[in-house]
């Protein structure tokens, strides 16, 4: 089995999942879009949020960015600072 990808959760995504981080098993060379597909399957309530972005190593990532198990991945629901 591959090492899991660690995913940090914030705001409404943390409340919906009920945890502040997840360990997600993904095939090698999976992309951001693949992660979201798996998360939507495992946590269908996440699909109800209009736009969840993904950050990889503290930078916003495109859907086709390839993920490594050493990356710090975070779900970024719509922001509301200020």
């Amino acid at each position, binding site marked *: 089995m591959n090492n899991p990808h660690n995913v940090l959760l914030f705001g409404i995504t943390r409340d919906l999942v009920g945890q502040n981080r997840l360990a997600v098993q993904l095939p090698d060379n999976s992309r951001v879009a693949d992660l979201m597909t798996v998360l939507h399957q495992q946590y269908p309530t996440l699909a109800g949020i209009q736009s969840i972005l993904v950050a990889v190593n503290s930078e916003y990532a495109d859907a086709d960015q390839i993920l490594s198990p050493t990356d710090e991945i975070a779900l970024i629901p*719509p*922001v509301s*600072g200020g």
Partner: protein
Amino acid sequence: MIFLTEDPIDINAAYGHIQTGEAGAINFFFGVVRNNTQDKAVELLDYEAYGPMAVREMQKIADEACRRWPVLKYVIIHRTGTLHIGEMAVLIGVSTPHRGDSFEATRYIIDTIKQTVPIWKKEQFDDGAVWVQPTP
């Protein structure tokens, strides 16, 4: 100077940080906790940040502001944790040689923070709580 803090924001310290002899204008924006949203009474706000990324994103915004306007010094401070009505959630200060640029740069910084920086607020009502949806 850019940072997140759980402590109350010190306006005088922020002023001291951006005051400089070349500045003819210093403009501040304070975002504060309002007691209502859409006619519903708000009791308090909980702010949460993805700290390292939030600081990086705020730095990008400050860098862009410095590229667009002749900014001499700036300060951006954002609170995290539980804030009560009237408390300051965010402070932005910009010093420039002339006033127009400090107004514009400050406005740009707060508007862009609300769009890109990973900070979230949850409104607590007497009958529940809700994560705030972004507003234009």
